[in-house]
């Protein structure tokens, strides 16, 4: 199958030259929701994802970092085709799935999964763990009952819920938040997927539990070669648990690149501000103010013209930044920034 023509955004061009398709490609993807609209008012478009281009390679973890209203959660859903993109293209392993019908996507449902955010609602509270894990197998009609039992046991062992027999019969409300998220991970893993979207999987857990879950995901990735899209607002965990990171602001990518490059040398003013706003444990912090950007992220129905960040940007140049939208440019090897003034 010939690789489809892409719009030329450097983020979407396959980087590897050996003919391998990226696991996932987004090409100027837009996801707009129409809301409101009454008798005399036209509906408004909430531009949750407004022109994002990304290529993800097999076996890597890409973190998408953004605050609320950046569109990262919507991006996670579009990538799994739980939503149909408004514009742009979505390719999975080279196949265009942008407008495929849901019933034609069952193969995708086997290969891609999601780990949701809220441990209280991420697993079905009325099912015992065994059934929760069996459901994906039942939906795809995989395996005899013995085979399924075997898979479920192994899945529970993989997420360190030992002994499996003990946990299988329990109900979610008998488990702690961290254990429930492990069940969510096991459920995502049970179909032996290639690609997983982890949507803030640890942000509602205690700080000490977060590391154990993220470590687990990393281990599973190395063992099974899974590609992860890790959506979070926490740059610090992104730093320790991903290979590349993309910073989203108001529905667009501001910066993207290898995680050490982006965090070591942030080129976009928003990334810089974000890094400065996060406190590391240091008792000297109390003696000074925390550098923070004033204002709020823009509302997605009417983003500012030009660069969306310009109203809050400390170095915004009138006449340029409020007029022209900056494209994503590769300023360092593999390190892309969408800013007129970055160097």
């Amino acid at each position, binding site marked *: 199958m010939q690789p489809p023509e892409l719009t030329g955004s450097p983020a979407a061009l396959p980087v590897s030259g050996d003919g391998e398709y990226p696991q996932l490609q987004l090409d100027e993807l837009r996801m707009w929701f129409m809301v409101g609209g009454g008798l005399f008012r036209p509906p408004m478009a909430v531009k949750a994802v407004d022109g994002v281009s990304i290529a993800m390679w097999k076996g890597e973890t890409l973190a998408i970092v953004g*605050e*609320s209203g950046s569109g990262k959660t919507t991006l996670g859903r579009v990538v799994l085709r739980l939503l149909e993109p408004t514009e742009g293209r979505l390719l999975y392993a080279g196949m265009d799935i942008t407008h495929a019908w849901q019933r034609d996507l069952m193969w995708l449902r086997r290969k891609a999964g999601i780990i949701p955010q809220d441990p209280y609602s991420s697993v079905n509270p009325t099912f015992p763990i065994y059934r929760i894990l069996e459901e994906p197998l039942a939906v795809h009609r995989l395996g005899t009952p013995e085979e399924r039992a075997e898979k479920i046991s192994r899945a529970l062992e993989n997420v360190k819920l030992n002994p499996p027999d003990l946990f299988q019969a329990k109900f979610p409300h008998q488990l*702690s938040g*961290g254990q429930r998220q492990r069940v969510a991970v096991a459920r995502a893993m049970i179909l032996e997927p290639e690609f997983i979207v982890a949507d803030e999987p640890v942000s509602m857990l*205690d*700080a*000490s*539990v*977060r*590391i*154990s879950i993220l*470590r687990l995901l990393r281990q599973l990735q190395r063992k099974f070669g899974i590609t992860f899209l890790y959506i979070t*607002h*926490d*740059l*610090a*965990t992104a*730093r*320790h648990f991903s290979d590349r990171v993309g910073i989203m602001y108001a529905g667009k990518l501001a910066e993207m690149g290898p995680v050490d490059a982006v*965090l070591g040398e942030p080129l976009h003013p928003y990334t810089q*501000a*974000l*890094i400065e*706003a*996060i*406190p*590391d*444990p*240091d*008792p000297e*912090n*109390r003696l000074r*103010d*925390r*550098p*923070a*950007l*004033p204002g*709020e*992220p823009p509302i997605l129905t009417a983003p500012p013209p030009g660069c969306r960040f310009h109203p809050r940007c400390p170095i915004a140049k009138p006449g340029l930044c409020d007029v022209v939208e900056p494209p994503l440019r590769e300023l360092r090897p593999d390190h892309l920034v969408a800013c007129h003034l970055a160097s």
Partner: protein
Amino acid sequence: MPALEVQNLRYHYRTRRGPVRAVDDISFSVEPGKTIAIVGESGCGKTSTANAILRLLPRNVEEYEGKVLLDGQDVMQYSNEEFRQKVRWRGISMVFQGAMNSLSPTTRCGLQIAEPLIVHYDLEREEALAAAREGLKGVGLSEDVAKRFPHELSGGMKQRVVIAMALVLKPKVVILDEPTSALDVMTQANIINLLKNLQRDVRLAYIFITHDLGLASELADDVAIMYAGKIIEIGTAARIYPSPQHPYTQKLIHSVPLLRGESAPDFIPGAPPDLTSVPLGCRFHPRCPVSFKICGWSASDLESFFALRARTEADPGIQKVSAKKFEPKDSWKLVVTPKEGVAPADLAAEIQSLIAFEVAKHPVLRAVEKVHAGTSRVLITLYEARAPELTGDNGQRASCWLLTEEGKQYAAA
């Protein structure tokens, strides 16, 4: 003189499964214009401490005693009515966890802030609203926010409204319970800056409750680490952060993923204990990497250890094991029943050699003090478990056996 001093505060409440020892003999103090951060995992009793200080008690309270000195006055002695009039919200107020979501959706913000003034000071509505508008300015919001409803505001603005509500009666001490938990990074930074400024301008004393050590370092002059209802380390931030003494604090600090800096974070295995059945001795010992036999042990752990061996026929001599508690000193003995035909003396010898052989692999066996063969059963006596005291100097104290003289001797041996 400290703005607030808490001495030997104890707060237990009853549940169907037993008494929850939420706050178990804690003491700390905070000076005016300074902050003490109470840091711990969820379920360690931090929010219960706040509720205990403000006397927000449910009906099933079992124990509630100690001293709470506000400006030198012991407010625990006050009646409920006195407390409500003089202390709650006027001397000490609180920003509750998730408060921005508990703002009443049908009342305008100005009125919500003004309410305590109308109730407590008997102010007229107009005066109270004027004071509320002043309060809004003080937290960096414009006055017309008073006319708006909470759902019209962003997360950061709502949190500022909540802070204004906490400050409206001009208290001396403010308890902040995870004040930024639902907020974005940028908004969080702005709110923290606001809190810092308010503290400087008004000389507020903060009790800052959080599980996030990074966030705590933004405000904390002193830090108290709580675990299972007790403060296990307390001291100045300047000493605790660089050199924590307690193994738990060490692990906690090490578990924070750093944005800058090299080390990879590590997690603490296991989970905090259920407050209805805390471990004996040092409450952290089941998860502690360096615990010794006097730190404490769990009788049920030992019981299951032997029971498992009995079940798997690893020790064919054991028929049944049960743990029995002896009052008053929290001492436990394991009663091991031998199988038919096995003499107790033989079984005792077998258990002795088992312990000597396996103690390296199973540190839980360190708790065994003595194995004694009776006429029909074998009695395993376990060490008495005592909780360690806070030891150290004025700048930093931790309750860990390894810091005491006794502990150091054990460690050497």
